[in-house]
């Protein structure tokens, strides 16, 4: 606890959600409370994963931090200042395909710089460098539909990181990929992240992935009115290799402990879904 307090006085958190409520108006006039009184701090340079049962509002919370959604109540502070709209300091990697289908990989990566006023030639040059960094140097002229799911995610990662955001928001970014590709992408992400340690908020339903990647794992309860019910530090050393770290006894113990809590919530989620 004193450690957290010190962190707050030294430097403001990258993301600070305080008692955030999220409500949606339903078609029949009712109100659905997706998230209730959620509080979460992500320090600068910290990698935090949010895990919870399907439909618990993890992505909703991410959209709040991104400024794509306004909370019904509570405070959202980004580096100590309230968030007025779209979070300009954040990059967002979406779960679904979010690349511009009518632009080539190179144009997709360069666009974030071009709209910010970087001259086209320079933007393209830097985009090419980023494509090379994510292992797609030779794929600059491909359109998204010509790439595999994993390659599209790599382009997406380059598209977000080229703008050098201080915060990285990721919504189950590797969800649709197969297990092998996920591991490779996870390692790539850790590689890129370790270069300049941005604050990361990473949503996933995969507990193993969450532990392997992050410094902290936050557990959300089943919705509606989902809350944050657990907050676990991951004291595993870095740099990590995702496939190797899963064999560590410490990893497995942590996984068992967190899973005890998560399992109850997942079952609750199922029971509610069936009860409806």
């Amino acid at each position, binding site marked *: 606890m004193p450690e957290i307090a010190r962190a707050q006085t030294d430097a403001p958190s990258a993301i600070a959600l305080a008692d955030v409520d999220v409500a949606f108006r339903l078609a029949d006039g009712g109100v659905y409370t997706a998230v209730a009184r959620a509080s979460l701090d992500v320090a600068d340079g910290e990698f935090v994963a949010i895990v919870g049962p399907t439909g618990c509002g993890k992505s909703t919370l991410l959209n709040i931090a*991104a400024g*794509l959604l306004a909370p019904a109540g509570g405070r959202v502070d980004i580096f100590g200042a309230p968030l007025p709209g*779209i*979070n*300009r300091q*954040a*990059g*967002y990697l*979406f779960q*679904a*395909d*979010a*690349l*511009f*289908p*009518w*632009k*080539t990989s190179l144009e997709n990566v360069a*666009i*974030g710089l071009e*709209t*910010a006023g970087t001259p086209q030639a320079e933007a393209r040059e830097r985009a090419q460098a980023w494509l090379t960094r994510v292992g797609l140097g030779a794929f600059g002229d491909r*359109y*998204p*539909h010509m790439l595999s799911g994993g390659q599209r995610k790599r382009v997406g990662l380059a*598209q*977000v990181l080229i*703008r050098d955001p201080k915060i990285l928001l990721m919504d189950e970014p590797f969800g649709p990929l197969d297990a092998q590709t996920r591991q490779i992408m996870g390692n790539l992400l850790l590689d890129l992240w370790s270069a300049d340690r941005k604050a990361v908020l990473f949503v996933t339903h995969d507990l193993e992935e969450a532990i392997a990647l992050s410094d902290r794992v936050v557990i959300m309860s089943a919705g509606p009115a989902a809350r944050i019910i657990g907050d676990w530090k991951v004291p595993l050393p870095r740099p990590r290799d995702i496939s190797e770290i899963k064999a560590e006894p410490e990893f497995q113990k942590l996984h068992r402990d967190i899973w005890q809590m998560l399992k109850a919530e997942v079952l609750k989620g199922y029971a509610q879904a069936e009860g409806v």
Partner: protein
Amino acid sequence: MSRVTLTALQVMVAVVSLVLWQLLTTVPVFGRVLLPPFFFSNPLDVAHQVYIWFSTGVIWKHLWVTLIEAVLAFFIGSIGGVLVGFWFARQPRTAAVFDPYVKMANALPRVVLAPIFTLWLGLGIWSKVALGVTLVFFIVFFNVYQGVKEVSPTVLANARMLGMNERQLMRHVYWPSALSWMFSSLHTSVGFAVVGAVVGEYLGAAAGLGYLIQQAEGIFDVAGVFAGMFVLAAFVIVIDSIVTVIEKRLLVWRPVAEARP
């Protein structure tokens, strides 16, 4: 099926139809010609008529007039459709107000407008252009409207997160999406531009393929009517293949399997 076989079969269909037509209009079956030449002419006469048109050069003027009318109708209709489609898609309130009138205007058979256009714009090309515009406009309008409305919410959110302002969203997200829908209806809209031109000419003009057909019909020159039809069909095929080439170039980013009809 190999390309050669396919082409051979396609040619065979034409040859068989033409031979049947020629035989049925010239050779009596049980002492009776099944297709009276007065009503059905025959392929040789039709071919002769087409040959005369091209050898004397008469046809070029008419083709040119029809082409100009169709091209003008296509561009004016498309520009109008894009502008109004964009406007309505971005201003739902305006769209809601005009909705019943748009539906009404679109339901109207455009042929009935032809006399009015002739009255307003005369017998020259502009009354035909106007008719084509009323056809092309709605096709483009509906597609652009849909294209702007159906931009993927994720792509839109991504664009916002990448720091795009309203103008940049327009240029990099809404515009390409709308254009892709418009281009996917390119065949239909170009086809309707030609239909508008020809129908307009048929109903009253001084030149054009429709005029040629109408003139031949007026003197019961059935060979002339068929000849006009064949020239028109060839004209449409040429235009359509040009459109295909343009479409392939413009929509190179789109996966083939997902192409809309």
